[in-house]
């Protein structure tokens, strides 16, 4: 009776054993575990054994021949069978517990646990285990969505309720998910761009609604290719369009035509980098009445352009050339000889060779009517060249920014000779680092009609000099003052300033008491020896600076929250305040409509006014 059973058992074992190499691999590739088959078989075998034992036990008891002994044997056998069944169950439980433990450690579990915190952790693990027990590849299953029968493959997707999906429904679901993700990503990107745009607008001083004109101009510039002609827009709008076009770097030989109308007197090209010499010559051909010409990045403004200009009868009286480094000294001279008489304004930026001392020397003879002269980023003009400027008696606006170091004397000479009529005096750049208080004294003595004063990067001028300049100065209050980086620098003793070099507390007090009434723009960037007391005095609440719109106090170390608060209260028109590097600022309340740039906090560049 036990014979066939034994054979079957042998047979089964044999099958399992022989299948181990090739078949197991195949099954494993199909996600079927040989182990599991073996366990199932074992469980079946145990169950069969148990039933056999029962029937076998029934046999001897019916004969009742062996009496007690047989009963004992039967009981023992039953117990044995029971322990075998128990063992199998135990094993199963253990393996399940092990699987659950493993699941509990897995990522998927942790994720689900996070999703619903309060549910029982064993429950989740069991659910995952049950999910794993879903139909295996190769089996047939009903699709969860369309209910069609389909063959499960390793690539079958799980449906929203945990069942499997047929190929078609799975694809559709995947597509939906993809779209959703793409949309999300896009949204995030859009939000990022918008935030950057808002920050950029704030730095430009734009809060809230843009004006209709601003929006029209940006639309126009976006579609600049469609425009044939700007019509008869007023000059200041043409200028705004030109600025926007340059900002987007779309000023090409094509779009240049928009700004060249025969009736124009002003041509401003803020970015000529993409224009060739021929395009620049075209300006003089198409705009015969040209009076004011302003070209930035005019790299291709060469001798041939200058020579063409000389031959024309263009009534030019203002020339602004930026980056025209290829015009030779000879061509400059010819230009000044031919056109100098009518020239009232001459501004030359970024030249390294051909605008030098000879250039300034010829100005006296060739440009008797020159009112405005600016030489910036220049490498050739020296003390001698500056001396020549003192001969230009009509000059009202003078700006110098050189590279080669210069000394005090020529500047004093210039100020002594022509200071009386000067309205603008701007001395900037590293080349004036050694200028001393004599320049300030000369300004105090001679200048009576200044409105704009800029002296930067001076490390030798002293606080006392600035006090002498502003104290009892007959000049009317200024509207623009810039003393950027007039401060003492010593890397070994950064806080000490024994001789009070640069603009310090008393100079600042004197400045504000002289010019505070009409000052529109003030820059004391990095004048770091102005004390907190001086700021508090100057901006104490009984004072008012009614015109001040723009102020730069970056890197003034002593500026505190209180000082900034006082500044906003005492300057009703103040729109923009820069406070980069004022590390004592913690939390400033900004009145509505004002812009504070450069707060040293992680929130970003700026806090915009919200307080009333």
């Amino acid at each position, binding site marked *: 009776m036990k014979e066939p059973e034994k054979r079957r058992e042998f047979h089964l074992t044999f099958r399992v054993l022989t299948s181990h190499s090739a078949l197991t691999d195949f099954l494993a590739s199909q996600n079927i575990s040989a182990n599991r088959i073996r366990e199932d078989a074992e469980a079946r075998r145990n169950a069969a054994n148990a039933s056999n034992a029962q029937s076998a036990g029934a046999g001897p008891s019916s004969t009742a021949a062996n009496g007690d002994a047989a009963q004992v044997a039967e009981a023992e056998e039953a117990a044995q069978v029971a322990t075998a069944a128990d063992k199998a169950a135990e094993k199963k439980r253990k393996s399940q517990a092990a699987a659950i433990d493993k699941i509990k450690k897995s990522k998927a579990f942790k994720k689900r646990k996070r999703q619903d915190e309060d549910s029982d952790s064993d429950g989740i693990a069991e659910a995952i285990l049950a999910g794993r027990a879903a139909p295996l590849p190769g089996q047939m299953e009903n699709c969860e969505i369309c209910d069609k029968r389909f063959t499960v493959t390793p690539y079958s997707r799980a449906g929203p309720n945990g069942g499997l999906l047929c190929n078609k429904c799975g694809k559709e679901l995947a597509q939906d998910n993809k779209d959703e993700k793409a949309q999300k990503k896009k949204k995030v990107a859009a939000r990022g761009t918008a935030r950057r745009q808002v920050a950029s607008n704030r730095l430009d001083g734009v809060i809230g609604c*843009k004006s209709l004109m601003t*929006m*029209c101009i940006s639309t126009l510039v976006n579609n600049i290719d469609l425009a044939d002609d*700007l019509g008869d827009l007023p000059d200041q709008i043409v200028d705004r369009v030109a600025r926007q076009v340059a900002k987007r770097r779309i000023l090409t030989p094509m779009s240049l035509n928009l700004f060249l109308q025969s009736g124009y007197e002003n041509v401003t090209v803020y970015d000529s980098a993409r224009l060739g010499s021929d395009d620049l010559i075209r300006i003089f051909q198409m705009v015969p009445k040209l009076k004011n010409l302003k070209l930035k990045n005019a790299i291709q403004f060469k001798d041939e352009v200058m020579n063409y200009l000389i031959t024309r009868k263009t009534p030019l009286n203002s020339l602004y050339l930026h980056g025209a480094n290829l015009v030779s000294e000879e061509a400059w001279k010819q230009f000044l000889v031919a056109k100098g008489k009518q020239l009232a304004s001459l501004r030359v930026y970024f030249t390294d060779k051909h605008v030098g001392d000879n250039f300034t020397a010829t100005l006296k003879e060739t440009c008797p009517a020159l009112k405005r002269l600016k030489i910036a980023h220049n490498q050739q003009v020296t003390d001698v060249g500056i001396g020549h400027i003192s001969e230009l008696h009509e000059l009202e606006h003078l700006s110098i920014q050189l590279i080669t170091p210069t000394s005090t004397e020529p500047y004093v000479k210039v100020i002594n000779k022509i200071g009386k009529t000067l309205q603008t005096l701007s001395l900037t750049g590293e080349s004036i680092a050694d200028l001393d208080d004599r320049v300030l004294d000369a300004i105090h003595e001679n200048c009576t009609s200044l409105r704009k004063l800029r002296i930067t990067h001076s490390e030798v001028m002293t606080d006392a000099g600035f006090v002498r300049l502003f104290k009892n100065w007959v000049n009317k209050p200024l509207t623009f003052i810039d003393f950027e980086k007039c401060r003492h620098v010593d890397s070994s003793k950064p806080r000490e300033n024994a001789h009070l070099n640069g603009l310090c507390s008393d100079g600042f007090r004197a400045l504000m008491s002289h010019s505070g009434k009409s000052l529109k723009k003030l820059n004391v960037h990095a004048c770091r020896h102005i004390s907190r007391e001086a700021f508090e005095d100057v901006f104490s609440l009984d004072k008012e600076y009614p015109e001040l719109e723009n102020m730069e106090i970056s890197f003034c170390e002593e500026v505190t929250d209180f000082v900034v608060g006082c500044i906003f209260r005492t300057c009703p028109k103040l729109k923009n305040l820069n406070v980069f590097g004022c590390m004592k600022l913690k939390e400033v309340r900004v009145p509505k409509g004002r812009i504070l740039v450069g707060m040293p906090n992680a929130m970003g560049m700026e806090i915009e006014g919200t307080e009333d």
Partner: protein
Amino acid sequence: MAEEEVSKYVTLISNDGFEFVVLREAVLISPMIKSMVDAKSEDHFPGQVMEKVVEYFHYWYKNREKEDVPDMDIPAELCLELLVAADFLGLDKQT
């Protein structure tokens, strides 16, 4: 452009006969119209342009308290005429 006294609204009439009824407070953004609201004045712009101008009045009125405002949509073909209108009406200032 004509005006209706007493009312909360102002009627702006374009030179080709379109009429726009606009909230009086909203048109005050334009110093030009503000001065015209008292005195009768003749037509200046075609309806299409006027429509956009009026749209801007309301756009401005709706968003005047806000900080982060999306731009108004301006059709490219109208923008030159609209620019002239904006200049004429003094709509070049913020706020």
